Each structure stands twice: as structure tokens, then as C-alpha cells.
């Protein structure tokens, strides 16, 4: 049911771990399916220079966590904010329909961590900053 890319990221997830004294940390739980993700960001001059994650969850949750961290590593905050769960799923060559909600976890955790970074540094939230609401997602 999973693509080869999903299985690759599940088997060899990139960027697993924690960052001590991270600039931003976000933890989100998906009440629908029990997946929980925590993401750690290191940010220098508006660039995400390092990112790590830990995920409790299904194959889709672990693979999207891994792929999402790869997609934002080295990117600007601005670009990272544009990351969507659909883009992550596409980069994984798709996810089964019932698993799309699991992929929201990564997008949400990333935004949570960025919000944490903004708050810690007294940076006002960028215009239009929103976090996806997992509970009301209909994917």
C-alpha cells in the first residue's frame, strides 16, 4: 500500500533525533490516529540550518516526518512556511487516501516549531500565518 519512497523513508528516516537548545521546538499529536511528532529547528539568519524529529506513529507519519525535514533543511523560514502536507505526500510519490491525515502532522509540527521560534525571539507572526487543524481535515 505504500510507495517505495515511503518505505525508504520509513526504513531509513533522515534527521531523526533531537537538537539541544533548539531555536524552535514543536510537538503535535494527531488525535485521530494517535500519531505524535516533535520537531527541533536550528535557525541562523532566517535560515533553517538544522532540523531533527522524533515521531510516534504509523509508517506514513514517520515517512512524512522524515521527508518534511529534508524539504525544509537549508531553506528560509519563508519557504518553510509554504510547505504543505500535499507537497510532502507528493514528494513521497503519494500516500494512500486514508493516510493523508497522517501527513498533516509534519506540516503542523513544523509550523508549531516556527511559532515557538517567533515567540521566543519576539518576532511577530508573519501575515497569514496559520496552522492546519488536524481534527477538521477532510482529506
Amino acid at each position, binding site marked *: 500500500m*505504500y510507495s517505495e519512497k515511503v*518505505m525508504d523513508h*520509513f*526504513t531509513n*528516516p533522515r534527521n*531523526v533525533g*533531537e537538537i539541544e537548545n533548539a531555536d524552535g521546538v514543536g*510537538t503535535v499529536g494527531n488525535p*485521530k*490516529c*494517535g*500519531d*505524535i*511528532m*516533535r520537531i527541533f529547528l536550528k535557525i541562523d539568519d532566517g535560515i533553517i540550518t538544522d532540523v531533527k524529529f*522524533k*515521531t*510516534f*506513529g*504509523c*509508517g*506514513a*507519519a*514517520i515517512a512524512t516526518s522524515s521527508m518534511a525535514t529534508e524539504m525544509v533543511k537549508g531553506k528560509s523560514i519563508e519557504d518553510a512556511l509554504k510547505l504543505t502536507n500535499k507537497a510532502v505526500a507528493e514528494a513521497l510519490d503519494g500516500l494512500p487516501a*486514508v*493516510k493523508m491525515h*497522517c501527513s498533516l502532522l509534519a506540516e503542523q509540527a513544523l509550523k508549531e516549531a516556527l511559532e515557538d521560534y517567533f515567540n521566543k525571539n519576539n518576532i511577530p507572526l508573519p501575515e497569514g500565518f496559520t496552522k492546519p487543524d488536524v481534527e477538521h481535515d477532510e482529506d
Partner: protein
Amino acid sequence: MERIYLDNAATTRVRPEVAAEVMPIMTETYGNASSVHAFGREAKKALEKARTQVAAAIGAKKEEIFFTAGGSESDNWALKGAAHQLRAKGNHIITTAIEHHAILHTCKALEKEGFVVTYLPVDEYGLVTPEQVEAAITPQTILVSIMMANNEIGTIEPIAEIGAVCKKHGVLFHTDAVQAIGHVPVDVKAMNVDMLSMSGHKFYAPKGVGALYVRTGVRLENLIEGGAQERSRRAGTENLPAIVGMGKAIELITAEQEAENVRLTALRDRLIQGVLEKIPDSRLNGHPTRRLPGNVNISIRFIEGESLLLSLDMVGIAGSSGSACTSGSLDPSHVLLAIGLPHEIAHGSLRLTLGRDNTEQDVDYVLEQLPKIVERLRSMSPLYADYVSNKQ
């Protein structure tokens, strides 16, 4: 790579002796059992032989066995058939919170028709008591349906005692014995069971065949209308190859039951003890002794079931889980929630069900692989990280 099948509660491999009996039914004895010619008569003979084999295995009379397309149909027929038949007498049905969906969803459908259903809670082991059943019976109660053994946690319910309660109160008693047949000695008369569902593919027969035992004198509305097969109570040309396979399979498994249960129970307990010893923060779900001989169900904290199954599959081990993410539904197993497990622990459940092909080497291979997989997944789990830092 080694491949080890430990999902025998999902389905089983058709055993060679059964396949050997099925084959000529497809290629030689292929007549329609309703036909008058020789082809039909031979088919009819094979059909009735299978009926005798099934009846003998559960202490029933031959005329009390009706072949169906499987456990789900048997369950649907028993519940809908009895409820509709007895509608004038009452509208109350008693079942448990841990039944298979073939029962629970049928109950939901009956609720929409105006029937009232009591879902008895179970204790931490998944047991329901005859006292609970007795206390739930009202003058409106027309049917009690309680599974003989649970498909997820393997708990064996006190069916004979519940049957006695139902008999005392004159209430019809159905049991879903899909997981129990072949593994638990069954005598429908001694157990006071009025209806019993079974499914062939759970005991090494082909898929797509089952049976409903209906005690003589119990009337049921038909579920499937049509021709006069099964004495006009279940229409449709009989799936004779599968029926013959089920007859052979139930005869074999019943004859071997005692010895095989001893063997499986030893393997089961070796696996359970090994897992609990090697994996900290794991627990056994279900009853330690009142459980199916091949059933192992454990919860491993801080990891999620689907990723556990995928990891096991990569080393050739086939199991199943009560995690929401394995089922496509959004909640973890209703059975694990009913025995009181919190959601996140229910998500980390693993069911390994042993069968006749499994050996001690299989168990040892699991005990070698599983701890490594758990360690890897825990090293990725934020819940485990929190647990470890809280401990320090």
C-alpha cells in the same frame, strides 16, 4: 529471507489433506447438488457428508447445520433472523462490547429498526460473566449473542454458564465461535447454545464458507431468499468445494485438538514470556490462561502498531495490530479500549497468532527480531524520550 506467518487468527493456510479433497469436487464431482442426475446426486452426497462432519465436531445433529458464505453471514443471519422472527415477543438484545464487527455492526443495524441492544462491558481480561448476562435480561429480551473466544485478545468466555442462564430465562442464545472452532472443545447441547457461527478459513479450510448451527425448533427469518437449498432456509447453489473442505478440515482439527492445543499453548507461553522478559514496558492483553492456545496479544508502550508491523514484515514476520492506522478507521481496536487500555497503549498493540505450521524456531526468531525493532522505533519516539527524561 525466512517468512513466518503469525496471523492465523486472520486466516489460515489450507492444509494439504483438505486441498486434496477439494480438488476433485471442482473437477469431477462438479454437479449441482439440487440436480436429479448422477452428477447432482454425487454432489449431494458430498454435501451431506460434510454436514455430518461439521455436526459431529460440535455435538449437533446433521439437520441443525446450515452452510453459509462465512462467519459474517452466519452472524448476520443469526441476529437479524432471530430479531425479526421474535419481534412480536420483545425488542431487547444482549451482547458484549468486544464482539466482532459482524455482530456489532449488525446490532447497530437492528437498533435503527427499533431494537434495543445492551453491550455488556468486560473486565480487564476481556471476560463477561453469566451474572452480568442474567442481570441484563428483561421481559423484553429475545436474544443473547456472546462470542466464544475473542479474535483479538483470545479470551475464552464462559459460554456454558451463560448458556445455562439463557436457558433458565427462556432466551435464545447465539455464540460467534469463529475463532473458537477447532481450538476450544465445543458441545452445543452441553453448552445450551441455540445458534453458533463458524468460518472455515479459520481452521485450515478454504475462504468463503461457514456454517450456522441452529438448534432444532429454533425459527429464524431467512436472510437469503431464493431456491430451496439448505431446506429452504438459505438459498444459493452450495459452494461445494469449500464446504467439502470445511467438513474435512473440521474433522481433522477436532481429532487433533487435544495434542495440538498442548503444543500451541507451550509455543504461545514461550512467546509471551520471552517478549515480556526481553521488552521492558510491554504487557500481555487478555487472560493469561483462559485464552486461545495460539493467541498472543501484547502492548508495547511508546511505539505504534503499524510501524511495528511494517518493521516485522521487513524481517519476514507477519502479524497484526489493533492500531487505528492499520485499519483505516480512526480509533484503535474497540476490544483493547474495552479492556481499559488508554488510546496510546492500544495503538501499540501487536497480535501474533500461531497455527499448525509454526514451530519453536519461529518463536525464537520473533524473540530475536522483535526487541531490535522495538529499540529502533523507541529511539525515534518522542513519547519514549519524555518517559526516559521523566524517569531521570
